[in-house]
């Protein structure tokens, strides 16, 4: 073998030291599967990561002037937005990017759900993704307090009070989160440390693991397709990724410049308002951020006592169970594990959107007019009309476009909405009827499957 003369250039300089050639070969051969569905869904994780990078960059810029403290937090944010050149833009970008990150994260998670990308062998990728979702909610919640304004104060008071419902350690946990019995300057210090150190470090670690798992296994091919066509990751997919990031940046900049305080919809606004005053009452119309609205509304729907529990405890138990089901989907969905179509879990995703969507509309008092205390019946009716209509359209589209035939969960969600909003039953009563209908429907489906499917083919 003849010895070739040493090549020049940075790559060969690095290659001689770190043996990069296998990595380059790997990148050249790495492929993204192409299937029947739109490849758009494969870009949402990258887009979420892009918005997270914007958060790190704008967060670092905010740290230059932000001073945490009961006497300084509000004042320094006001200084940033009114005195520092482009300070308003940095804060506006930070807030908008936070919301856009949650939007793209939720869409990424829903698309993973609908395409069953979580199926074996990618269960841990889904679990790490779920952990990232929880961390993103933690970012939203802890960042909310930092301006130390009225809205922040009560949102944090409610959020930290709700952890009291955790069995055995609830009270201890609430004190640890707040740094005392009430939300105070100590809470600010703790949330600041969480927001700028603990959560970012955790996200780096979990994102690293999430990406490592994806790198190791490749992206999930469409369900039931053994050898799909592929698109080269580098440069074809990468360039498309970059293009979407650019579009994301343009969207972000446009929103941040033209709507610096958000669209002024409750839950999507960040006007600084008045400074937090622990001795002022909560003001009418106070709402948490849009992605917490459904939990806020659920807390309102529960009566003072139910099944031997206090209302808030029962509501948070329901939220915990729903989150646990969502986190464990890869282990519950046995059909997709065998690479078979799994229409029940597609329908579960649609039902989750209907359930959360209806509660969110109610939290916005849609149909309540301008009254400070809207009529709950009128609100329930108007929201039910919207949610029920949207649900029917979605069902018709699923039937016509994708020939879906499994609608048990979404039908139960629609039954719940109709009984509560259109018939006028209580939210929990109609929910119980819908739950019984689901149980009966599942029992019937199982019974029919046992009678018609030969024993060897049973799911």
């Amino acid at each position, binding site marked *: 073998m003849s010895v070739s003369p040493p090549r020049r250039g940075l790559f060969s300089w690095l290659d001689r030291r770190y043996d990069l050639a296998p990595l380059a070969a790997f990148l050249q051969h790495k492929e993204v599967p192409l299937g029947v569905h739109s490849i758009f869904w494969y870009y949402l994780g990258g887009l979420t990561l892009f918005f997270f990078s914007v958060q790190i960059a704008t967060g670092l810029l905010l740290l230059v002037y932000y001073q945490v403290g009961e006497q300084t937090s509000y004042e320094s944010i006001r200084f940033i937005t009114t005195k520092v050149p482009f300070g308003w833009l940095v804060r506006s970008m930070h807030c908008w990017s936070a919301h856009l990150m949650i939007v793209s994260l939720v869409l990424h998670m829903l698309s993973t759900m609908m395409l069953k990308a979580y199926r074996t062998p990618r269960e841990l990728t889904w679990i790490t993704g779920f952990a990232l979702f929880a961390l993103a909610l933690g970012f939203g919640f802890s960042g909310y307090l930092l301006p130390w304004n009225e809205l922040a104060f*009560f949102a944090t*008071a*409610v959020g*930290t*009070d*709700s952890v009291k419902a955790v069995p055995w350690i609830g009270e*201890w946990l609430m*004190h*640890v989160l*707040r*740094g*005392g*019995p*009430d939300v105070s300057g*100590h809470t600010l210090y703790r949330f600041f440390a969480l927001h700028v150190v603990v959560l970012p470090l955790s996200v780096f670690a979990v994102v690293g693991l999430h990406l490592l798992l994806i790198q190791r296994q490749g992206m999930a091919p469409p369900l039931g397709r053994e050898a799909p066509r592929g698109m080269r990751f580098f440069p074809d997919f990468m360039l498309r990724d970059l293009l979407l990031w650019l579009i994301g940046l343009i969207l972000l900049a446009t929103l941040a410049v033209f709507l610096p305080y958000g669209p002024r919809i409750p839950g999507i606004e960040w006007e600084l308002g008045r400074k937090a005053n*622990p*001795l*002022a*009452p*909560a*003001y*009418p*119309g*106070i709402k948490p951020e849009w992605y917490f609205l459904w939990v*806020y509304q659920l*807390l*309102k*729907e*529960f*009566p*003072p*006592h139910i099944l031997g529990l*206090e*209302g*808030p405890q029962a509501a948070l138990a329901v939220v915990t169970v729903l989150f646990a089901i969502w986190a464990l989907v890869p282990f519950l969905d046995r059909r997709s594990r065998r690479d078979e179509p799994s229409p029940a879990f597609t329908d579960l995703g649609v039902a989750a959107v209907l359930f959360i969507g209806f509660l969110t509309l109610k939290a916005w008092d849609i149909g309540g007019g301008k009254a400070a*205390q809207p009529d709950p019946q009128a609100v329930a009716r108007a929201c039910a009309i919207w949610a029920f209509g949207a649900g029917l359209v979605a069902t018709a589209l699923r039937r016509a476009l994708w020939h879906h035939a499994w609608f048990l969960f979404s039908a139960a969600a629609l039954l719940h909405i109709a009984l509560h909003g259109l018939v006028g039953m209580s939210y929990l009563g109609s929910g119980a009827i819908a739950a019984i209908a689901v149980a009966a429907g599942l029992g019937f489906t199982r019974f029919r499957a046992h009678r018609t499917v030969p024993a060897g083919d049973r799911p």
Partner: protein
Amino acid sequence: MQPESAAAAPSRRSVLDLLLGAGVLGWIASIAYPVLRYLKPISLQEGAGPLRLTREELARLERERSLILRSGATRVLVFEDAEQRLRALEARCTHEGCTVQYVPGDSNVWCACHNGRFDLDGRVVAGPPPRPLARWTAQREPDGGVVVAPAPRTEQA
């Protein structure tokens, strides 16, 4: 030296494993315990007790008919009802800990966070709060001052 019996070897191994495991657990506990104790806030505030309103607070009560004060770690709502009687209740909503307010028009106490309503004695009238607000007493002194104090246990709603 006698060769060890086959039965004795695993038992010595398992004792060592047990000791090692216990050592690791002790090591974790010796780190976790101080950290957890460090995170638990120490109580710097005194417990709730009787409170005399300042001149400014009296003027505000006169003007706005209600006022929120702090006694130790407790927030107290003091207000004047339609019969101009002074009343006081703990201001922390029993639902999710928001601060309640007196609504003179409806003659009740309201929490804006989740629409909980209480009567003037602190009993739940509507909405999700699971328990009544703790009662306090508010008394006018002969010199015109006002003293607010936790109500005796027997007077709680």
